[in-house]
């Protein structure tokens, strides 16, 4: 295992220590339970946005804590959902009295842990709602299964909802906005190499020099299919077409109902992309790919969108939701409206995203 680490079991903690030392103007870190939060939290009257998930996806989520984005992030062990006590402690730390939104990626672990946290928080009088992000079109089935994973759209939802919270949106509006971002975002990724979980010490899977994995997630897990290595144009075509041609996606998700004070099943449907739609095109690095290669992906993606009558009006290219040192990339296309554009453009100051 080739990594810049000390002991594998200290990796997450030491990385957070380095982050805290480097960005003391933006974040503070609490250990046991572990969470990262804005130095200026709680902000009275502002809705607090909290996310969290396994570590190994840097800069997500801890790198997105700061003005204009998250109020707190809960990092778990590498690729392992954090625990309810972390989420609860984070909520208490940043609660400004206007309620809290948990942005949760749709993985059994994350969903269950955040559900437990939500249940406990509410018994303690903290107002918490949750929105699931499930945008990975590589996952085909929807009903009666875990459904689609939460990937690239998470980053965009955190930015857009963070800006909305900063602008004084109330919890109800932010929840609706977050749901809308999720319903309009779709992603898919590929890997040229596996990654190595520090505690495991060897790659999760192995690929020969001429193979790649299509439809991977962000946990170093193998994808939907293993195929022969292709040119970047062909790969981009695959990812883009899977996203663009994705049929309306219907599924049932569980959200907390404030009136009924219990979990309710909500049916949600992603509309398909349409000619004329304005898009945010997000080309994401899985970790080990040079940014120069991401530009090759973007080059082809821009051409495909133009051919299909889709208009890219914003873009984001770089390492934002990664799988340790995995080589590969993912594409996310988010259909934008005026409100989302204004919120996307709003200032943000975090370790991982800043303008």
């Amino acid at each position: 295992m080739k990594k810049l680490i000390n002991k594998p079991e200290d990796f997450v903690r030491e990385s957070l220590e380095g982050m805290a030392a480097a960005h003391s103007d933006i974040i503070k870190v609490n250990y046991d339970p572990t969470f990262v939060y804005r130095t200026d939290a709680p902000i009275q009257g502002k809705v607090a946005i909290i996310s969290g998930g396994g570590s190994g996806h840097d800069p997500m989520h801890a790198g997105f804590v700061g003005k204009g984005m998250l109020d707190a992030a809960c990092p778990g062990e590498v690729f392992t959902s954090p625990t309810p006590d972390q989420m609860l402690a984070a909520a208490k730390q940043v609660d400004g009295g206007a309620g809290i939104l948990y942005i949760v990626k749709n993985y059994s672990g994350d969903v269950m842990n955040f559900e437990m946290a939500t249940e406990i928080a509410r018994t303690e009088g903290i107002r918490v709602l949750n929105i699931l992000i499930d945008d990975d079109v590589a996952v085909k089935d929807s009903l009666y299964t875990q459904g689609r994973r939460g990937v690239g759209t998470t980053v965009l939802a955190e930015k857009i909802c963070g800006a909305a919270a900063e602008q004084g949106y109330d919890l109800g509006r932010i929840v609706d906005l977050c749901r809308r971002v999720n319903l309009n975002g779709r992603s898919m990724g590929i890997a040229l190499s596996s990654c190595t979980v520090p505690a495991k010490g060897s790659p999760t899977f192995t690929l020969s020099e001429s193979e790649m994995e299509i439809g991977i997630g962000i946990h170093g897990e193998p994808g939907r299919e293993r195929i022969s290595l292709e040119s970047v144009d062909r790969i981009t075509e695959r990812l883009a077409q899977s996203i663009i041609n994705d049929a309306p996606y219907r599924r049932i998700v569980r959200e907390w109902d404030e009136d009924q004070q219990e979990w309710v099943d909500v049916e949600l449907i992603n509309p398909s992309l349409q000619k004329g739609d304005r898009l945010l095109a997000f080309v994401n690095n899985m970790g080990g790919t040079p940014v120069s290669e991401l530009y090759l992906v973007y080059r082809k993606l821009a051409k495909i969108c133009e051919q299909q009558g889709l208009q890219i009006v914003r873009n984001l290219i770089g390492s934002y939701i990664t799988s340790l040192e995995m080589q590969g990339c993912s594409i996310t296309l988010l259909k934008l409206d005026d409100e989302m554009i204004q919120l996307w453009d709003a200032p943000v100051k975090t370790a991982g995203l800043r303008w």
Partner: protein
Amino acid sequence: MVDKEQILQWLQAFTTEIEKNKEYLTELDAVIGDADHGINMDRGFKKAIAQLPNVTEQDIGNILKTVSMTLISSIGGASGPLYGTFFLRASTVVAGKSELTAQDLLEMLQAGLDGVLQRGKAQLGDKTMVDVLSPAVVAFGQAVGTNKVILPAMQQAIAAAQEGLQNTIPMLAKKGRASYLGERSMGHQDPGATSSYLMLKSLLETLENKTQ
């Protein structure tokens, strides 16, 4: 009867079993998941049994509740809430007890299973730990209903668990990370089902030890 001492021994035996199978469980998870199940379980159960010395004087319900709380706050992932909920629900039905009858044990396991089902919403055949826990609890219940003797009933349960575990191999995963793999999930044994099998096997071995 199963006494408190045996429950403590079981928890210890399971933790040892997890430690021994840490790499194995992680490798199973590498194939259809994210290569952390053994690591997660090992971290959580080691922390849990480290708490046991503080509660040896308390009843079985409190012991299991302590285990549950530690699992919930230290495993994370899918197995954290699931094993955490299993022990939490199990603890409530044996609250106040220092020894368990066959019926108590059945109710305890049933409550744990119900908790897992409610938390994870998985069904039989989804290729999860439910595919081991559920047939085992059914078999145990039937055997207990017939002759009320714990050890042979638990042997029946283990046989069912083992069969359930084998059955996960051809299954198409519908819950958990393996579900993302679609058809590629077929042909591989489920890691969580494997750890659940080890949990029941440790219980049987603990019970057998006493009778020896």
